[in-house]
């Protein structure tokens, strides 16, 4: 086992990793920017070194300074957490070159799964369902119609060169498809300088459901069930839960199997997550794989009792997985709310500032992963998330009620934050019934509340 681990990150996830290390009697090295000198990860780690000024590019992304700190402090491993250097194959490679264990998969795997098209191809080859579509740009209307007939309607026409909605058109039948192709090409041409478009099956009202995996260095893999992460705003997850309210044992087994198959096909090692789109008929399609620990990992921990960060450390140290698939079961229901320094009533405007009062909730089934404290400054340099509240209860309804009570208790003065928004979601009748989709927040919830 490692003797000393450097945590190349900040905020709540740095604390999370420090906790897992201390439980394993591993010493911890924190790095920090000048803006973070008063942060809790600096206070809680055994050692802490400043690696640069406030901007992340010069501190938390400053690879030479981070590697130097690891070497000088005598760390034998680096945990990248999420964000920053977590999915940079280059960084994992430099760690390896310097004799430091990188707590995550190999640089090759990171690189392969980081290229979204290559990842999709690899999964398709491994037999994991991917969203059907044209393999490249479609030339003619006739070709487009042919492909659409093959993959089935509705289909979506997308600009090959761009993103962000420009050039996108949905067609529910062939007549509509032939009508929208020309304007899609024109819009794409205007926006990106290329009129090439491609086709994909359009998944209506999809859910974002992801499978948590653990794979050891000996090719043994288990899945820890799913997380439902459909509640997003601008592709940022707001609230996650486990299990998914619509999951069945059969579907979980199938999706878990698919995720394991895909991961093993790319020689995946360590904790990872396969994200799927799940349609209303229970069909699921590979979206991407996150080759790191995720923000929302606690909901899986709460229902399985497995400490995922501990497992990451054990796997990276070469330990074989201690559990088999049949040892893993989900008990009860867990929900996570991400609390950010944003004003939900002013279009989620970031609101950095000093926290004047800070009283986190407590009691049964409540877990708080937070980097905040009374008198701490939320700076504008970094991500606005400063706390996660996780509520567990035997049933989903009770977990929602527990979360509601906890969020009402949670006292934060001095900055605007998203707790009022979460409280509205928790009381929403559709949410209560578990009727979720990735457009829930933006098309239904925000529209209704006119936030």
């Amino acid at each position, binding site marked *: 086992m490692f003797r000393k681990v450097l945590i190349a990150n900040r905020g709540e996830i740095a604390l999370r990793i420090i906790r897992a290390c201390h439980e394993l009697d591993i010493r911890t090295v924190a790095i920090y920017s*000048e803006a973070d*000198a*008063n942060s809790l990860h*600096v*206070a809680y780690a055994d050692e*802490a*070194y*400043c*690696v*640069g*000024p406030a901007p992340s590019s010069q*501190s938390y992304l400053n690879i*030479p*300074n*981070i*590697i*130097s*700190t690891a*070497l*000088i*402090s005598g760390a034998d491993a680096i945990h990248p957490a999420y964000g920053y250097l977590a999915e940079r194959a280059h960084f994992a490679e430099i760690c390896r070159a*310097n004799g430091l264990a990188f707590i995550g998969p190999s640089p090759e795997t990171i690189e392969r799964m980081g290229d979204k098209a290559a990842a999709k191809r690899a999964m398709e080859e491994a037999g994991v369902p991917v969203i059907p579509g044209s393999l490249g740009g479609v030339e003619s209307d006739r070709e487009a119609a042919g492909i659409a007939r093959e993959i089935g309607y509705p289909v979506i026409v997308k600009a090959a060169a761009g993103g962000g909605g420009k050039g996108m058109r949905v067609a529910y039948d062939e007549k509509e498809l032939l009508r929208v192709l020309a304007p899609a090409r024109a819009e794409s041409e205007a926006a990106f300088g290329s009129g090439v478009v491609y086709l994909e099956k359009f998944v209506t009202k999809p859910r974002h459901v992801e499978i948590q995996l653990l794979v050891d260095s000996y090719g043994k893999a288990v899945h820890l069930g799913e997380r439902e992460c459909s509640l997003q705003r601008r592709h940022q997850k707001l609230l996650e839960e486990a299990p998914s309210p619509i999951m069945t044992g059969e579907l979980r087994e199938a999706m878990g199997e698919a995720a394991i198959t895909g991961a093993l096909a790319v020689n995946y090692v360590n904790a990872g997550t396969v994200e799927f789109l799940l349609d209303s008929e229970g069909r699921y399609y590979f979206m991407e794989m996150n080759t790191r620990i995720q923000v929302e990992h606690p909901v899986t921990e709460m229902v399985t009792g497995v400490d995922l960060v501990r497992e990451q450390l054990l796997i990276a140290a070469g330990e074989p997985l201690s559990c088999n698939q049949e040892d893993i079961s989900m008990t009860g229901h867990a929900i996570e709310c991400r609390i950010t320094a944003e004003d939900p009533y002013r279009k989620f405007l970031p609101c950095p500032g000093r926290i004047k009062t800070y009283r986190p909730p407590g009691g049964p089934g409540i877990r708080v992963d937070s980097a905040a404290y009374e*008198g701490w400054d939320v700076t504008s340099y970094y991500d606005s998330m400063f706390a996660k509240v996780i509520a567990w209860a035997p049933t989903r309804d009770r977990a929602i009620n527990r979360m509601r009570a906890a969020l009402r208790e949670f006292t934060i003065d001095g900055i605007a934050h998203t707790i009022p928004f979460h409280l509205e979601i928790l009381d929403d009748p559709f949410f209560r019934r578990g009727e979720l989709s990735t457009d829930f927040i933006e098309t239904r919830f925000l529209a209704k509340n006119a936030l």
Partner: protein
Amino acid sequence: MNLDEIKELLQALSASDVAELELETDKVRLHLKKAVVFAPQESQRNEGTFPRPLVTGQVLPLEVSAAPSEQETVIIAAPMVGTFYRAPAPDAPPYVEVGDSIEEGQPLCIIEAMKLMNEIEADVAGIIKEILVENEQPVEYGQPLFIVEKLA
């Protein structure tokens, strides 16, 4: 100076970040001093559990010893994390000693980072007053290395 003028000064001082005002003319001497200026909570907190950060950049005015001397004293801090060497090679003499005059651009030490030797140059001219780090000691970003008395 009449009463209204003094009152105006009082208000102006209150509203400002200035802590003390002394005015002396041939007719009048006025001295105004503010109550504790800085946020007490802040200073208390920093005395506490957290390590006091070294603030920003490479060259800092050194406030502590500013008073007695007319010269400005500056700190030269580590621009990177690494191991500090006073000399270009183990058997070579140190780049600088206390009391040495230095020029802008003159190498002062080496910081080894990831097996690369980085020469750290002075960005002020002056006299080395103190060397704060031992040879072969690891330094973090922003750590003070030298105190230099700047040439006027």
